[in-house]
Each structure stands twice: as structure tokens, then as C-alpha cells.
């Protein structure tokens, strides 16, 4: 908090991405032994694989945030429109 609003925003973003990452880890399928793994003949590359997990968490969290902001904006816009189009009480 001593870093100010920017630090708080960064901490919140990190927590959000972390939560997204943890939620993804809870998903069950795709373990070794999964018959589908046998189809994947392409070497995904250890570094690519691990980076992808991190990137997917960041991008997925960003998508959730973007969706939330978008929905909130639309709600606000609809609310303002409704207020403006309401006929005067007088």
C-alpha cells in the first residue's frame, strides 16, 4: 500500500492472475495416461509448455477483466440512457 494506487493495482492484478492460474490447475482432465496424449506426436517443448500455462493465465484473466469492464460499461450506459429518456415527472 505504501507504493500507492499503482502498487495496489499491480498487486490486485497479480492476485487475479494467480487465482486464474490456480483455478486452471484444478481442472482435472489432460493428465499423463490420458489416451488423447498418445495422439499428440508433436513435442510441445518444455519451455513452451510452461510459458503457455503462465500466458494463458494472464490472457485469460485479462479476458475476464475486459469482459467485466465491458458489461459494467454497458450497464452504466443503459442506466444513463434510461434516465435520460424517462419523461419528466412534471
Amino acid at each position, binding site marked *: 500500500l505504501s507504493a500507492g494506487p499503482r502498487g495496489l493495482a499491480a498487486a490486485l492484478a497479480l492476485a487475479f492472475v494467480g487465482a486464474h492460474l490456480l483455478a486452471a490447475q484444478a481442472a482435472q482432465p489432460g493428465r499423463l495416461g490420458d489416451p488423447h496424449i498418445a495422439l499428440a*506426436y508433436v513435442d510441445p517443448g518444455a519451455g513452451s509448455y510452461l510459458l503457455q500455462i503462465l500466458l494463458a493465465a494472464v490472457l485469460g484473466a485479462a479476458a475476464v477483466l475486459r469482459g467485466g469492464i465491458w458489461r459494467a460499461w454497458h450497464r452504466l450506459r443503459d442506466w444513463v440512457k434510461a434516465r435520460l429518456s424517462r419523461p419528466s415527472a412534471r
Partner: protein
Amino acid sequence: VTGASGRPHPGSFRDPSGFLFERDGILLRQINRTYREPYEQLMTSGLYDALVQADLLIPHREVPAEPHDPERAYKVLQPDRVPFVSFPHEWCFSQLRDAAVASLRIQQVALTFGMALKDCPATNIQFVDGVPRLVDTLSFEPYAEGRPWTAYRQACQHFLAPLALMSYRDARLGQLLRTYLDGLPLDLASRLLPRRTWLRFSLFAHLHLHARAQTRWARSARPPSAGRVSRRGYEALVASLLAAIGNLSSPRPCGAWLTYRAEDSYTGEALVQKRRLVAECLDAVRPRLVWDLGANTGTFAQLATERGSLVVAADGDHDVVERNYRDAVERRDRRMLPLWLDITNPSPALGWANTERPSWAARGPADCLLALALLHHIAIGHNVPLGRFVDMLGALGRWAVVEFVPKDDPQVRAMLAHREDVFADYTMERFEREARRIFTVERVLPIPESPRTLFLLRSQRA
């Protein structure tokens, strides 16, 4: 491989799900038993129909043909044949970008049907009727939530890395794909890209950070099941790659040929007459497949596409290929296939045992070659004797329309202005004599109001 007759395709051996083979001139695909479930899901889920209708996948039909390896076989398919196979290092920037976009769109569509691409090499895309389409029916696997995308590395190496280099550095770097058949090493791309690309999140993440992750964890013993990717994260990753590729701007022109105009070498009337005479030759030959050698922006290649021929319009200058491709897309010319190919050093046979990807010459012969305003560049610009030029024509085509540009032509005079004229043999008589070794000279057509002459040649081997 055991069993029945036929010849396995030399470039189809990596995927244990099946392989291509050829029998009696028909290309067939064997699906192995291990791929039974994914194949049935592809066909019954509606994904196959959706992709074929969207022009993203070549269609196939199941045929009762005997498999090439019956012990492992589940089914045999006969895919629609690709009229002319080309490779990523022969594509201009926009072709590679369109191929990338098609691959990632296929991945997005597949996800909506509960499947995903298990591989993503650029070679799985071919241009058919002017549109990039997936040609590998075995590229799909069931999507399992939590499992990362196995082809992510491939998508970055085959598409994003070369495209970013072409866009930010120089279009000619696309030729690196001729050396690196499994896509550009990301550490190399990261080193070659300018520093400002670190400031673009998509390039920073998918290329620079990716390259460092590959180096850092190259020998990681961590099992691939150790991490999970949520469905939302998976979709966001694909969307991010798609946006990264879609946002790359076209490379700056780097060659001199884009400013070369046919009008500079002819009077208006001579150009009209040349068009008429070339059209006349094409009408006489009625070729199905034309290779236009040194096609530039495809002005004369269009004469052939207008007559229903598929034209492979080859040129060694990236910028003119790019222009030709974009123009063809704009006017929806589905018979034009511009390729970035240097006639003096065409694509060799590449890959495992030099058989995985056939050479340019092995993909012939063409029904008809167009070599218009080319001979003087080859003979004088590249010191190739006339006899060798004719040998090359004989190896590549059944017919040829060749324009002879004499030494008193302004273009040739300009070429010889600053160098010694060591080309005593460069005469029309010598050319005709060489041509008659291999071809029958069907027509000799002087272009009115021009010192140039067109030859219509028919191969004696045809």
C-alpha cells in the same frame, strides 16, 4: 510398412495417426486404428462439414480401397488432390499471414466442436482455388479442458516468428523457412528483431519471452501434466496469437522490380500486340497448368487465368509476388498462385533423405511455360548460356512461350552499358538452333513495333 501395393508419400511419416500413399496415380490417406475415435468425432460432431463449408479444409471421401498397411488400418480416404503443392518459403508475406490466420481460425472453430489442432505446421496449409486450406485431416484431437495446446510452439515458430521478422526487418528473411523446416528457432527470431518489438505485448510474450523460456527450461524434467490451462485461457491464447499476426503490417518494399513496368519496355501498341500474341499462343495450347517464369505482378499470367488455366506465377522478387497475390485476392482470381521463387536457384528437394519436400522441377512438368521478357535477364544478367536455358525449359514444360529480346532492344542495351559484352552467342538464330534440339518451333511471332519476337515451342518429348 507392410502389405499392399502403392507408394507411401515421402513427406507423410511423422504422425502415427496415419499417412498418405499413392496408388495408380491416386492419392489416398490411410487412417490408423489409433486415430479411430478422433476421426469419428471430427466427422460426426459437424466440425468437418463446418470447415469444408468455410473453405478451411479440403474435402475427402471414404473409399473401399485396400489400405497400404492393413494391420494398422482403420479407414482409407481419398482427399481432393491439391492441384499444385507449394511450400511456406515460396510464399510472400501475405500468403504466409493468410495461412497463419486460416490455421488459427480452424483452431477456434475446432474448439467450438470440442476438438483442437494437435499440430500446426505451415506445410499443413495449401493454397487451393486461391484460398489457404488445411490439407491434413488427421490434425485434430479431442479438446480436454486443462491440457495446454501442444502445437503452441509450432504455431509461433512456423508463423509468428517469420512473419514478425518479415514485417519488422526485411521480407527476404522469409527465406529462412527454406533452412528451418520446423519453423524459425525463436531465439534466432528474438535476436534479429528490433528492440522496439519488446514493447509490443504479443511479440514480447509469444516470441521474446517464449525464446527465453525455451532456453531456460530446455531440459526441464517437469512432466507435461504438471500444469493446467483453463478453457478461457486457452481461447485467449489463440486469440492473442491471431491478433498478434493480424496486426503485423506489411513489410516495406525491398526490391527494384515493383517499379518495373511492362510499359517502359514497349510502346502502347507493342504491348497490346504482345498481349494479343500471347493470348493467341495460349488459345492454341489450351493448357491446364501454366508456370509463368519471372511473372512480375502477373500481367500476362492473367491472360492464362482468364482462359481457365491454373497459373503458378513465379518470381524471385518478394515485392512483386506480394502485389500479385494481393491483386489476385482483390479481384477473386482463384486460378492465380503467385510464388516467390528465383528461377536461377529454384527450391531444391528438402527434408528427410531429401525426399520430404519435392524440388520445384519435380513438381512439373507444366502444360505450358511462359518465359516473357525473361531470357535476357537469365542469359545476360546471370550468364546462363542459351543452351542451358532451353534445357531448363525442356525439363519443366511440354509447351513454352518464350520472348526473345535482342541486343538492340533498349533494355538489353541498358544491361550491357556498364559491362563487357561477352555474349557473342546471344542471337536469335542461336536461340532458335538451341530450341530445336528439344522443341519443335510451332510459331515465330515478331511483336509489331518492337524488336522482340515470341516463340511458341512444343516439346518433342510431349
